[in-house]
């Protein structure tokens, strides 16, 4: 049983893209005993033995322990018929994913793709899996070195940076969203844009907190706006996209910083203006490529305009930055 349960995962190189109802997989071979195992795994009711088909909940608990079953997750494509499921697994295996390792599971990412077929009972409870618990039960990542764990996350973040720099219509940014990239970019921007404490004037550049608040509250406002207009993108997916698309502007800030080391003058300013305008356009194109599809077609302009305003304000802060 344990082998049966772990083997399929190592067979799937693209397993980072699919999260599965592990309990359901075991049940397919072992008969219906979803309920009490689901209850056991949720961790909420170890003291409430649920009578199940086996009759003895203690037995079920022991079996659950020795199987080291993971938490319930939803696997996209699991609930379809076996033929199409295999086809989808093959297709998912080719899509970008780290071979042999699992990257952080997206929350609710596969939920919209679930189609429930008649022959597989839908059991278990929907709990939000915490990532550390997944790793705990996931024996393929439990014994790996710390370097592997960290490198996996770093590679995921780096992959998303690449997607921003070469924007294609891919779903990676939306599916496996994370907020590491936006946090790093936002902190970098705020650290570099803040005026020094030695500056005695009241009117100067923004403080660290002002930049931070503008970026995060700007992103939250844009996300709320797009959801209120009827867009079907999730809150954190949108935050992820908006945050990652600040990358070109951060590059522009670094370039401006370097250019400002040279002699000040109109040529200096024109070079900086050109760089900032280019990166601003790049950010807009990148974020629109990811976000535009999620809006209803007659409101696309209404949803894209705030993104334009957001990046314009950040570009302005970068352009007027004087050390």
């Amino acid at each position, binding site marked *: 049983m344990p082998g049966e349960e772990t083997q399929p995962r190592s067979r799937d190189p693209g397993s980072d893209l699919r999260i599965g109802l592990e309990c359901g997989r075991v049940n397919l071979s072992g008969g219906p005993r979803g309920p009490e195992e689901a209850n056991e795994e949720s961790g909420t009711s170890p003291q409430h033995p649920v009578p199940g088909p086996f009759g003895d909940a203690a037995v079920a608990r022991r079996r659950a322990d020795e199987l080291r079953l993971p938490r319930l997750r939803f696997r996209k494509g699991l609930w379809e018929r076996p033929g199409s499921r295999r086809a989808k697994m093959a297709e998912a295996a080719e899509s970008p994913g780290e071979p042999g390792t699992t990257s952080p599971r997206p929350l609710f990412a596969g939920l919209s793709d679930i189609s429930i077929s008649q022959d597989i009972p839908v059991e278990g409870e929907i709990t939000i899996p915490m990532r550390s618990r997944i790793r705990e039960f996931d024996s393929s990542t439990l014994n790996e070195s710390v370097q592997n764990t960290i490198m996996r996350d770093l590679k995921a973040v780096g992959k998303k940076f690449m997607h921003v720099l070469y924007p294609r219509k891919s779903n990676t940014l939306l599916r496996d969203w994370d907020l590491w990239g936006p946090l790093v970019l936002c902190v970098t921007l705020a650290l570099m844009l803040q005026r020094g404490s030695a500056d005695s004037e009241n*009117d100067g550049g923004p403080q660290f907190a002002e930049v931070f608040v503008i970026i995060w509250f700007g992103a939250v406002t844009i996300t709320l*706006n797009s959801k209120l207009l009827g867009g079907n993108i999730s809150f954190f997916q949108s935050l992820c996209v908006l945050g990652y698309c600040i990358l070109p502007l951060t590059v522009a800030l670094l370039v401006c910083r370097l250019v400002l080391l040279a002699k000040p003058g109109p040529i200096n300013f024109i070079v900086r203006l050109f760089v900032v305008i280019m990166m601003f356009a790049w950010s807009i194109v990148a974020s629109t490529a990811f976000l535009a599809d999620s809006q209803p077609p007659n409101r696309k302009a209404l949803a894209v305009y705030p993104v334009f305003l957001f990046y314009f304000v950040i570009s302005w802060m970068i352009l007027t930055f004087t050390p």
Partner: protein
Amino acid sequence: MAAVDDLQFEEFGDVATSLAANPDATTINIEGPGETPKRLGPPRGSGREEDDELLGNDDSDKTELLAGQKKSSPFWTFEYYQTFFDVDTYQVFDRIKGSLLPIPGKNFVRLYIRSNPDLYGPFWICATLVFAIAISGNLSNFLIHLGEKTYHYVPEFRKVSIAATIIYAYAWLVPFALWGFLLWRNSKVMNIVSYSFLEIVCVYGYSLFIYIPTAILWIIPQKAVRWILVMMALGISGSVLAMTFWPAVREDNRRVALATIVTIVLLHTLLSVGCLAYFFDAPEVDHLPTTAVVPNQTVVAAKSS
């Protein structure tokens, strides 16, 4: 059967005749826009035509029905707030166009808003205006002081927060006060026209749109140009506001009505002139760079030689 007949859209020849036939019925005129001049023919006082217009255009019937069904979710659900963003791109453009071209006799609220007030326009127009004023002010100050040797450019970021406070306070508190005032007057004098709070917020928000290009044009450092722009913007948006609120206070005591309209326009003036004075430095200073630079250059030349 009677219920089915009521739901059929019939052509009513004339409001006066149908009112004569059935004086108790509410009549809503659904004629097309081409027939409007004919409608304004016989017995119309100066007040009645505006009332007929206020009763709406072709699909006001539908929108009145829909308005009743729309906001049915409780206020703690997300869907409740989605009803305030139920506008399409072309509708927002139409409303902006309506605020830029005030036509005498056309009421902005009835013509464009039509029981579908949105919060998208007011919110994002105010946000754009905040940044337009702050950025233009910064740019204009930079251009004015460009030649001065003692001038060190600062981005003046603090002004963004000040601008935001002023504009959002104006766009939300003044409508709130006006709505409260109209409600109070309505309890004393029966007015035909009354606006909901969101409709007033909508009118104010869209009327601020004219200030966005005005703020950008204020970069030009000529006093005359700036004051002409103020007059134009004030004229357009002030007339939109005045024409919107005149029907609401018309039935009231003459002096109260006039005072209300004058206060509305005065507050609008205060906003625009205040923004101009605070965010944009006076351009007389640009005489100085030409006179200040010359002695500096001679001093520098003297020192280097």
